[in-house]
């Protein structure tokens, strides 16, 4: 008899069935956004989504949205994955894998993910950073709500961007160390110990700002900035170029578009799989902040009060919402409505799959 075998590792798991073909469904807990699309899609009701609000807030030393840093009390022994699948019910059809907007569930057939098999539909979405346009400002890295972006950059050599001359007349120098304390580039080393006096200026660090010269009480430093006098004539513009690389971790990325939103150039581009709407009933909201804490794309925030001003209970950043619906499921006051009006997926012949994909719309 063919049986499903479940292998649990930490909070992730694999369900495998070996028959003529090997089917494997894997779940990555850290990727799961808790939207519950898998739960409502599963044709055999094998999937159960846990209480995502409680799980995502059970963290130590975290700033919870809307509530400034609080000493968190983690309940000992609390350790739950965001969803569970009954391996005896699961038929390894791959519906959950195909419809998971974060790709936390992945079905492979004989080792090939169904996203790479043409007969299976998958969402049309992407997020990418164009290296030709990127100026490596790292704004996207800071903004990314999933910490999925890594921008590494190599800065130009400071000495290549300045030009000048500096020297100390040691006959006049009294080794007082004022220049060392004033130097913004930390280029000067002074030893003031009697009998061992010395002064050394590191010309790789010096930017010829002339602060040392101006502050020297005995006028012992002679320095000149060549750029101030003659312009950039001996500076090579190519030496000033910042190089680097910007990489999006596609496993964690949920295509929310923060990178594109903050990018000062046209380097970051994204496309969301769903179109729709996010509505918050401000009167129903009791500002518990659960929505803000589960939202995978930082699209909801609870504003902090600054004085007696009437503010909205929840602020939404509509442009970054991926319409996953995790907030709607979590909200204890039913104050949030998420609607999907359009799902973008690759064509398929399967009527069942089309029905499931169309059922996401509401």
């Amino acid at each position, binding site marked *: 008899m063919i049986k499903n075998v479940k292998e649990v590792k930490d909070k992730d798991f694999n369900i495998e069935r070996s028959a003529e073909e090997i089917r494997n469904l894997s779940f990555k807990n850290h990727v799961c956004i808790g939207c519950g699309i898998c739960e409502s899609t599963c044709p055999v009701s094998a999937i159960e989504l846990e209480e995502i609000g409680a799980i995502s807030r059970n963290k130590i030393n975290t700033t919870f949205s809307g509530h400034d840093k609080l000493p*968190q009390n983690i309940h000992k022994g609390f350790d739950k994955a965001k969803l569970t699948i009954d391996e005896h019910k699961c038929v390894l059809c791959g519906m959950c894998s195909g419809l998971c907007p974060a790709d936390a569930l992945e079905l492979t057939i004989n080792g090939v993910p169904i996203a790479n098999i043409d007969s299976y539909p998958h969402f049309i979405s992407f997020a990418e950073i164009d290296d030709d346009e990127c100026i490596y400002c790292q704004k996207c890295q800071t903004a990314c709500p999933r910490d999925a972006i890594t921008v590494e950059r190599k800065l130009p050599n400071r000495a290549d961007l300045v030009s000048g001359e500096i020297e100390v007349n040691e006959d006049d120098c009294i080794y007082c160390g004022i220049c060392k304390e004033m130097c913004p580039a930390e280029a000067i080393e002074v030893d003031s110990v009697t009998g061992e006096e010395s002064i050394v200026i590191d010309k790789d660090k010096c930017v010829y700002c002339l602060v040392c010269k101006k502050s020297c009480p005995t006028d012992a430093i002679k320095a000149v900035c060549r750029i101030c006098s003659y312009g950039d004539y001996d500076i090579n513009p190519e030496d000033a170029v910042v190089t680097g690389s910007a990489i999006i971790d596609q496993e964690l990325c949920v295509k929310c578009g923060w990178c594109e939103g903050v990018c000062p150039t046209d380097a970051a581009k994204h496309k969301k799989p769903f179109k729709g709407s996010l509505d918050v009933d401000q009167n129903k909201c009791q500002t518990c902040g659960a929505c803000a804490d589960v939202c995978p794309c930082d699209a909801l925030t609870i504003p902090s009060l600054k004085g007696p001003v009437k503010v909205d209970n929840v602020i939404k950043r509509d442009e970054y919402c991926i319409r996953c619906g995790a907030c709607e499921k979590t909200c204890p006051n039913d104050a949030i409505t998420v609607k999907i009006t359009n799902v973008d997926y690759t064509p398929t012949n399967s009527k069942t799959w089309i029905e499931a994909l169309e059922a996401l719309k509401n």
Partner: protein
Amino acid sequence: MELKVNQDNCLGCGVCVISCPVNAEISPENAGGNGSKTEEVVTMIENGFVKIFCADKCKKCGTCQMFCPCDAIWVE
């Protein structure tokens, strides 16, 4: 998952009762700290300790757990 309390840990501060968004909806006067006028709420402080009244109304958002200073209320 369900809401659980440990009265041995509870200080009776009432933070969980006031912060609970479901309580706030059922009994808005809770927010003033005077306690609910009805027992139809999720939690209340009774005799100095937190007590669950309507467990089925809890939506497991984890707000009480987040605010509790002494691990006396949690969702598990």
